[in-house]
């Protein structure tokens, strides 16, 4: 056997193989790069195809903390300054109040109930109007921390009810206290969030994303403390004029679905005050 020729053939074959492998490596890297560009482009494409427009808030936080807070146990002493109402404490942390003053819905509803809240509700300024359900004669409010609402937490909600005569009848309140920030983390941007919703097909055709706001949603309930995670609220106006809200974890982009389920209310050890 001619070893010299064999050696040369081996060298040539392995050189060609190396060139081939190197070109495959380069192509693979180029493909990876293209996927990222395609990702951004495909999102814009989907939004365009579905005729979905969006407005981004001018200033957004790039990072936010988790928040812990404790549930308030109401007591007679804390309610002594509430006037024009009869109050009842249920299971320590639910305040049920019957309004004895004559207040019309129009009066109360002025400026999103702000005057009513400050005059008749304990720490009323911490609550912000979320929704008015006219058929049920109810208005729903969320407690805020640092100007950010705590979405759908039964422990941080206020519900005002009025009667057929359009006079305020009562309200039910739960409240959190001793808020503390911890574990600041980077947030996904509103654009990332809109892209995430679009890629999951959760944004309807011909809709408009009107705003993206920051709030909190319940992450964990400990025995005393509740922990809340930063949450984006994506507000969408549909083609028929209706509004939709999509809630997503601001750190992970996970879609959060809330359910307003009435907690069992124990009427044992209740207290009454005027």
């Amino acid at each position, binding site marked *: 056997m001619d070893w010299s020729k064999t050696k040369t053939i081996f060298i040539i074959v392995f050189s060609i193989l190396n060139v081939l492998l190197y070109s495959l490596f380069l192509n693979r890297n180029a493909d990876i790069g293209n996927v990222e560009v395609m990702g951004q482009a495909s999102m814009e494409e989907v939004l365009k195809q579905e005729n979905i427009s969006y407005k981004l808030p001018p200033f957004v936080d790039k990072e936010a903390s*988790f928040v*812990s807070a404790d549930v308030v146990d109401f007591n007679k002493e804390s309610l002594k300054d509430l006037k024009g109402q009869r109050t009842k404490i249920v299971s320590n942390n639910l305040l049920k109040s019957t309004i004895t003053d004559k207040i019309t819905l129009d009066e109360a509803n002025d400026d999103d109930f702000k005057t009513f809240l400050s005059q008749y509700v304990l720490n009323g300024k911490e609550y912000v109007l979320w929704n008015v359900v006219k058929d049920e004669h109810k208005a729903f409010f969320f407690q805020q921390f640092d100007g950010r609402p705590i979405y759908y937490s039964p422990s941080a909600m206020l519900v005002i009810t009025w009667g057929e005569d359009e006079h305020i009848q009562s309200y039910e309140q739960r409240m959190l206290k001793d808020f503390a920030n911890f574990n600041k983390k980077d947030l996904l941007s509103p654009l990332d969030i809109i892209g995430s919703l679009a890629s999951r097909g959760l944004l309807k055709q011909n809709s408009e994303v009107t705003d993206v706001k920051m709030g909190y949603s319940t*992450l964990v309930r*400990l*025995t005393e403390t509740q922990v809340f995670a930063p949450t984006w609220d994506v507000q969408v106006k549909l083609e028929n004029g209706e509004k939709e809200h999509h809630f997503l974890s601001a750190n992970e982009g*996970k879609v959060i679905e809330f359910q307003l389920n009435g907690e069992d209310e124990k009427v044992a050890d209740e207290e009454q005050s005027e």
Partner: protein
Amino acid sequence: MRFSILASGSTGNSIYIENEQGAYLVDAGLTAKRIEAQLAKIGRSMKDVKAIFVTHEHSDHIKGVGVLARKHGVPIYANQKTWQAMDGLVGEIALDQRYQFDMETVQSFGSISIESFAVSHDSVDPMFYVFHENDRKLAIITDTGYVSDRMKGIIKSADSFVFESNHDVGMLQMGRYPWSVKRRILSDVGHVSNEDAAIAMNDVIEQKETHIYLSHLSRDNNMKDLARMSVEQTLKTCGIITGEFVHLKDTDAEEPTQLITI
């Protein structure tokens, strides 16, 4: 006896223990270079380390074992099944550096006695260690799906605990892990949650100054503050107020804890 938790979490675990006669590591789950760097942060080096005690063969506990053994000639201790499982994962370790530490046995190193005990984890033969010196006791227990009465009996009344507080069950269940991984973590051979850790702590804490290092926290399903709040509040429901004689301490995946004397 003094100790520092060099790193804790699923990215790597190692605990440094020393007395006047020498120093020891429990696990070397970081690269050798990182362990040396962590030791330097507490003003120590590998030259004083007389042995490394391996708990089980998962990579976050043995990543640096092979290199440290070869580079520093340090003896490695593990039980027989763990040795078999480690072969091929840690590279060549000279025969005269391979020592056997059987389950449920005690070995003495000068004035320190080290007791091994079984835990429930998805590795071949996992075990952890209790360090005794005079009347002082350091108990290390992480990587266990639950804390049995037998484990509690062994770690009971330690002065310091390195105690697993891996995850918040709610966060894990709602999180992004695949269901198979969630099921594994929550199982009897997975990891201990914040609440379960606190319930177990209640059974092993004595009425004396006790330091508990919350360890092996999940990066995705836990947070230091959350673990502390959760353990604090669960202990409170059991009648133990932290800060009185029980002190909860954080551990970190990147930074070693301060070297403390017990």
